[in-house]
């Protein structure tokens, strides 16, 4: 397809060609074709939708949102445009606006598991775990193997302490959608939660091999390389048990020191406090230095 061809193509043919290019992730070519097509068919909702989609995948959210506004002005009930708008609101941290979009869509399509997955995922990010669980459950009632709803439900179960062995949703996700990126991400989270960082890194590396252009996956593998670096060994308790370890260490040092100071030799409690503060500084500063090095 050359750029000049688009002028003589009818809308349907043009849409077909753009879909084919998008399927192959040839966004540059698709973008040129859509731009030319919009000169000939400026009000084509399909072409406007593709234009918004390309802007969105290229992280030009403002341009995408402006195009979605044009689509929804012509066709207020356009499903794809509303779904994309909800996702853009969420990515732009306008959580309440995203919630309004999902609620409006679910009122129109109350049996759509995709929408329950999106809304549940939003609630998960807003730390409203109970609602996320109920939304995922409702989605699974309509589609028991829906990947996004299983992902949200498995995450909720993981948050409430159901790990790999006894997390039924995660088992179902692994069984029904082993190829799905969300499955891999959830497996990584579950392994990390169990302190199996090296195994989690291997899964993350596999995911990166399947999607080498994903900046999120690159960042995830990098994070695991940092966590498993030998200089982080001293921080193992904090990495393994997270904030619980941090709380326990604070309590042990502060209360232990208060109780033991009278029995300790002169100067020992001062040395312990200095050592502890040094450890705290190490735990705060070293990971960010290492991030720049690795």
């Amino acid at each position, binding site marked *: 397809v050359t750029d000049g061809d688009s002028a003589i193509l009818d809308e349907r043919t043009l849409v077909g060609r753009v879909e084919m290019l998008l399927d192959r992730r040839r966004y540059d070519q698709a973008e040129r074709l859509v731009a030319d097509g919009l000169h000939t068919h400026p009000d084509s909702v399909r072409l406007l939708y593709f234009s918004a989609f390309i802007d969105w995948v290229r992280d030009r959210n403002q341009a995408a949102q402006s195009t979605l506004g044009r689509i929804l002005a012509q066709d207020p009930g356009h499903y794809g445009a509303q779904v994309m708008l909800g996702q853009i609101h969420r990515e732009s941290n306008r959580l309440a606006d995203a919630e309004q979009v999902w609620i409006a869509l679910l009122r129109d399509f109350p049996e759509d598991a995709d929408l329950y997955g999106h809304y549940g995922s939003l609630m998960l990010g*807003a730390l409203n775990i109970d609602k996320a669980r109920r939304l995922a459950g409702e989605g699974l009632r309509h589609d028991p193997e829906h990947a996004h709803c299983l992902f949200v439900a498995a995450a909720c179960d993981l*948050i409430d302490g159901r790990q790999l062995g006894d997390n039924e949703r995660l088992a179902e996700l692994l069984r029904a959608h082993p190829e799905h990126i969300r499955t891999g991400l959830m497996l990584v989270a579950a392994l990390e939660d169990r302190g199996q960082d090296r195994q989690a890194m291997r899964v993350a590396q596999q995911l990166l091999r399947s999607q080498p252009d994903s900046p999120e996956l690159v960042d995830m593998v990098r994070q695991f390389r940092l966590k498993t670096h030998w200089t982080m060994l001293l921080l193992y308790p904090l990495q393994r048990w*997270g904030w619980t370890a941090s709380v326990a260490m604070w309590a042990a040092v502060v209360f232990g020191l208060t109780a033991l100071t009278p029995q300790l030799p002169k100067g020992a409690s001062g040395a312990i406090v200095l050592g502890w503060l040094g450890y*705290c500084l190490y735990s705060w500063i070293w990971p960010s230095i290492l991030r720049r090095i690795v």
Partner: protein
Amino acid sequence: VAEPPHDIDELLRPSLSPETTGSAAIYSPNALFLTAFFGGPFALIGIAALNASRLGRLRQDSGYLIAGILLTIGFVTIMYQPGFEWHMAGLSEAAGARTLSRALALLLALAAYLLHRRFYRSMAIVGLDAPSPWAAAIGCCLLGIGALAAAIILVRL
């Protein structure tokens, strides 16, 4: 796993306020403990209230926050009343009051952590970073130290 149907109207009731922007991530336990350590019990209650507010649970957590305030006022009333026998505990007044105040603040920090533990776990699993605590922690420390000083002055009047 079979799912029972949910009340769809209840499920589709908005739960985020229009002002909600950014993530609902809350200040980390380290921020809680440092605020408690340097700012005392009122400062800790302040930062715990900010966390509750970020989670949209201020009303649900208000009972715990009020209990923390009452506990601190009770502590100040008992410990700082004129003639309290500090030497009975083998401590000077200044050192004893400071140590106990800090211990109370750290215990309250532990309680605040436990109150929001599920959300800390969620942040770890969902991959949300805690917000920068500096402005909130310094503000709470200043207000907390001021409130504690005011309470001590009132008790000693």
